Each structure stands twice: as structure tokens, then as C-alpha cells.
């Protein structure tokens, strides 16, 4: 039997479990979606799981994660409450935000997951503020801030790079570069492809992982985190990745969309992080983990099914925080 822990301390079994869990949750979401039981748009992470899993595996328990509207993966990878997430997608009272946020606005404060946003790039400066708050209040932890390639075109992104570097904020920037902003490829959006060079001009160290190798992603995150935790300021990790599903919704759009060809998908599928992680483990371990994952997913969906919808009285709750610093 192979050693389950590699030389960097990565627990292969755990990493496989998280990859598989995200994959199966997403597949189950896609399966349930046509029934209309899920009451919010879904942006699936299928194919991109290794970014969240590799990064979150490198984080400490005191660290925070800020995700995007394609945020199921980072939410699950950082230990977000899974039944409450599925109930949130169902719009149920048992949802993590009592059905008021849905898939695009997942947040789990208890598990250190900041809220995601449907407006691209908006969470990036919020991550900075949160990290500054931790630093000033002498609380432990850093903020791992995930965003896509589209976010890097927003003005607030550059403002954030500058401010994070200026104030040496404990932020790990993670670019999930899947090459498309909805259906528009990078070639129609970027004057040059040297994004990391642009980032480096702010004095921010960068790493790039081209192939969704989850262990490489984890190792690169760990290298950057050393500097961040030492007070040297932010780090920037680019993970090239590929969105297997359509932009929003449960299906695929290779034939129908006309903006990309299925041949683009093939190398990524050959390199599927979930399958590769499974190959690193004994078959008996894989099947045991798979069975546990199936049960965990089923429990989460059962919880969502059984949870009631919130009563109409909840419509007007939480518009304002009723507490004050009296």
C-alpha cells in the first residue's frame, strides 16, 4: 500500500475526498436542477475543483476564504456546512442564509467563509478590508480571496493589488483562470497575456500552476503563504483551469454555444484532478471514500428536501441589523 501522505505533508486521502465531494455535489446539483427544486441560478465548479481543494488544504483553521458566484468548490473545500448549502440552493429555511442568498451569495461565517457576490470582482477589496480588520484587531488568520479572470479586468482589482501591497495585507489572491468571461475568451479581452507581470509590478510575489495539479497548487499556495504569514504582504496564485459545464446552469454548451469546441475540453478531462487523485490511492481506499461521499451528499440533499420554506414574515427580516454598539 502506498504511503498516503507525501513529502509535503499532503494527505492524499483527504484531498481525494474533497475533490470527489465537490464533484459529486455538483453532479447532483446538475441532476436535480431540471426538477426546479433548486431555486437559484447555479454556476458549477466541475473541472475547477482542484483550485479550491489545493488552496484550502494549504490553509490553517484560522484562515478565511472569499469565493465567487462559482463558489460551491471553495465553500465546500474550506469546510462550509454542506446540508445548509444545499438547503440554501433549494431556498429553504434551513439554508445557510435562510434562503435569501442562494448559490451566488454563499456565506458561512462560523466556518470562516465570507459571502460571495454576483457582481464580478466586488469581493476582492472586501477581502482586503477583512484581512486589514484581522491584522488591526490582532486576530490570527489570512484571507484567501478567489476570483476569476474576468475580475482582473475590473478597476477595483488593480486598486486592490495596489492597496494590499501598500499595506502589506495578509491576503492570498487566487486567480481561477478558466479563460472565459461568460462566453468571451481572453483573446477578446486582454491586450497582452502577461497578467502576472502586471501583478508583479506591485511588488507582489506570484506563482502559476498551468495544469490543475492539485498537489502543485497546494505547494504553490504554501510557498506564498509563508511570506504572507511572515508579514511580507500579499501573494498571488494563478491557476489555469477549465470550466467543463456551461457558464450558468447544469448542462454543457460545446455544440449549442458555438463559442468553444469540445476539443478544448479533452486535455483537461484527460488531466482530471479527481481521477488522478484516485489513481494515487489504493482501490479499496477510493471505494471506501466514494461510499462515504455518496452518503454525505445524499444526507445533504435529504436535509434540503425536508427543510421547510421560510415563512413570509422572514421577507422583512435582516434588512437592517437590529443590534448596535450601545
Amino acid at each position, binding site marked *: 500500500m502506498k504511503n498516503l501522505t507525501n513529502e509535503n505533508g499532503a494527505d492524499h486521502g483527504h484531498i481525494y475526498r474533497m475533490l470527489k465531494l465537490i464533484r459529486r455535489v455538483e453532479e447532483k446539483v446538475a441532476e436535480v436542477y431540471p426538477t426546479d427544486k433548486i431555486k437559484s441560478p447555479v454556476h458549477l465548479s466541475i473541472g475547477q475543483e482542484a483550485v479550491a481543494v489545493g488552496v484550502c488544504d494549504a490553509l490553517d483553521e484560522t484562515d478565511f476564504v472569499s469565493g465567487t458566484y462559482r463558489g460551491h468548490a471553495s465553500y465546500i473545500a474550506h469546510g462550509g456546512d454542506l446540508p445548509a448549502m444545499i438547503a440554501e440552493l433549494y431556498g429553504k429555511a434551513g*439554508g*445557510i*442564509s*435562510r*434562503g*435569501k*442568498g442562494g448559490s451566488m*451569495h454563499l*456565506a*458561512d*461565517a462560523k466556518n470562516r467563509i*465570507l*459571502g460571495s*457576490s454576483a*457582481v464580478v470582482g*466586488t*469581493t*476582492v*477589496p*472586501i*477581502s*482586503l*478590508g*477583512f*484581512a*486589514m*480588520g*484581522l491584522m*488591526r*484587531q490582532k*486576530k490570527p488568520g489570512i484571507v484567501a480571496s478567489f476570483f476569476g479572470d474576468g475580475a482582473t479586468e475590473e*478597476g*477595483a482589482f488593480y*486598486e*486592490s493589488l*495596489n*492597496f494590499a501591497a*501598500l499595506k502589506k495585507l495578509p491576503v492570498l489572491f487566487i486567480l481561477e483562470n478558466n479563460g472565459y468571461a461568460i462566453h468571451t475568451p481572453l483573446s477578446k479581452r486582454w491586450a497582452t497575456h502577461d497578467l502576472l507581470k502586471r501583478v508583479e509590478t506591485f511588488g507582489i510575489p506570484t506563482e502559476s500552476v498551468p495544469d490543475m495539479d492539485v498537489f502543485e497548487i497546494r505547494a504553490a499556495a504554501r510557498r506564498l503563504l509563508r511570506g504572507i504569514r511572515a508579514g511580507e504582504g500579499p501573494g498571488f496564485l494563478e491557476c489555469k483551469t477549465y470550466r467543463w459545464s456551461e457558464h450558468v446552469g447544469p448542462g454543457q454548451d460545446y455544440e449549442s454555444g458555438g463559442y468553444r469546441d469540445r476539443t478544448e475540453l479533452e486535455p483537461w478531462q484527460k488531466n482530471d484532478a479527481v481521477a488522478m487523485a484516485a489513481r494515487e490511492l489504493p482501490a479499496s481506499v477510493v471505494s471506501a471514500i466514494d461510499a462515504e461521499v455518496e452518503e454525505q451528499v445524499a444526507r445533504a440533499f435529504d436535509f434540503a428536501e425536508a427543510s421547510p420554506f421560510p415563512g413570509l414574515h422572514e421577507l422583512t*427580516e*435582516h*434588512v*437592517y*441589523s*437590529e*443590534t*448596535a*454598539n*450601545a
Partner: protein
Amino acid sequence: MRELRYVDALREAVEQEMDRDPNVFVFGLDVDDFKAIQGSTEGLLAKFGPDRVFTTPLSEDAMTGVAIGAAMSGMRPIHVHIRMDFLMLCMNQLINMASKSHYMYGGQFDVPMVARCMIGKSWGQGAQHSQGLYSMFMGIPGLRVAAPANAYDAKACLIAAIRDNNPTIFVEHRLLYPTTAPTPETEIVSTPGKGRLLAEGDDVTLVGVSNMAVECLRAQELLRDAGISAEVIDPVWLLPLDIDIVARSVRKTRRLIVVDNGWTVCGAGAEIIASVAERLQLDVPFQAARMGFEFTPCPTTPSLEDGFYPNPKTIALKAFAMVNGGPGDWQPDAERAKLAYQLQFKGPF
């Protein structure tokens, strides 16, 4: 009671809250320079140091996000903008994130932040340093909007805004900075949504927003010469809005003029008049009028700027015509009009 300038009331409120709570901090372009936002942040850097009082890059969009994130982490940021016009650079974060985070995350996060901003006027402020854009925020659930018009309310509202766990757009007016009012050294905390009766009267209700509250008070003084008794109300908070205090007055006067510190279309005046009408329905028929900026960008030259803003004279003439069923031939005495311009609200608070 001690007379305090509006600008010093702002400074004092922040200083006292920073003393009280180490999580309160002030940031924004030039809050720590020698001019200290016209004096409103003076001395804070020396007392509290650069971790709690610091300038920023000109990145209003991201800096607003920083305020939101810091607020979510347990701090109480005060983000300062020397002109309200610059809030347009912050709209995405204010409208899409600050106002909605508590709700869309099911109450898991609070956003206790204050965006201080100043409306400019005169000395050629022009189109982009003069806008009173608060009505844009008045229709956004999750926000609070304060627009105090005297030193006492400035202190009380700012303390309330800092302590409140919701994001507050705090609207100041440059011309109010030197005005004084009796203001206690002790802490005073305004109740969001509570307006203020500035002067009692029977014939017409004048509601003035921000600096226009003072202009209404001056108009009331002029109207007295014409035998017209005007009641003057300052809403103080624009969200939530104190409709009770206005409706109560209109029930008595049957006449309502709202003088806005902005354009009238979709403005605070429209909201106030509509809300009062809904409240009173046909039980209490009343005449209503809106006054506000001319529907043009603000011009720079004084000869045009004079016509852009309502002033005590135009307000008085409007009220006179409403009370008398037409303009008549009354004109406020020129000397009296000049003197009325020195009038400030002195309480009682």
C-alpha cells in the same frame, strides 16, 4: 450650553467614539493632512496614530470595499469623502454589497460603516463639487442616510451612525461647517428616523433638507414680515424618514413646501410629499410644492449660480403665493433679507 461649530462637532463625535471603541477608525484621501478635511479630522492623527487615521490611494471603489470588509471583521470604519460627487465612484460597493450583505447572507455579517461626504456650494464649485445626491441612496433598503443641518445634530447623528450596525451615508454641507449651535461636550446619540421641528407656525410647513433647512428658517423670518407664520422642519434623517413629524404639521397648516438640496425629480421632496399624501389621504387636503436645484448641472459663475439654488427669498415668495393664492406684490425687504442670511438654528435641542 457651549456653542460649537458644525465642523468641530464632527471632529468631536469621531474623537469621542475613537476613545470609546478601539475598532473605530477613519480613512479616506487626505484625512491626515494639514487641512484635515476642512478641519473635521483635525488632531485625530496626533491622538490616535496612523493605524487609525490614514489617507488612501484615490481608489474610492476598492476603498469602499475595504471599509465593508473591515466592518464585517468587527471594525467600525469611517470612510471620508471631501465631496459627495465622489460617492459615484463607490456606488457598486455601497449599493450591491454594503446595503445587501446583512440580508443576502441571512444576518451572518453586519456592515457597521459610515461614508462621510460633503456637499459643496458657491465659490465656483461647479457641476461636480456641488451635487446633493442623497436621494439615490434613499430608495435602497439596508442603508441609512443622515443629513444633519446643525452642530448638535451633526454630533448626535455621527455618533449614532458609528454605533449603528448598518451602513450609513452621512451627508454634510460645506456651508454648514462654520455655523454654530449649543452642543454638549457629553455624548449625544440621535435616533435614526427622528426629524426636528425647527420653528413652529400655523400657515405653511417648510421642510428643508441639509443646508436648505437653514434657508427655510431664514425664509420663515422673512415671511413673518408678511404676516405669515411658517412651521419649519428638518428631517435630519432621510432614511428612515420621519413622515410623522411632517404629516402632523401638514394636518395643521394644510400647506407643504419641501425645499430640497438637490434636484426635485425623483428627489427627497417627491418622496416626502408622496408619503404625506398617502398618510393623510383625502381627510386632510393640502397644497404641496417642491423646490430644489434648477434642472441643470450647477454652473460656476455666480450670476448663473444665484438662479440655480432656492434661497430664503425664493422660498418666502413661494410660500407667500401658496398662502395667498397667488404671488401678489409682496417682496421681502432687501435689508431684512440680508440680515436673515445670518440666521442659524440655536435650539432648543
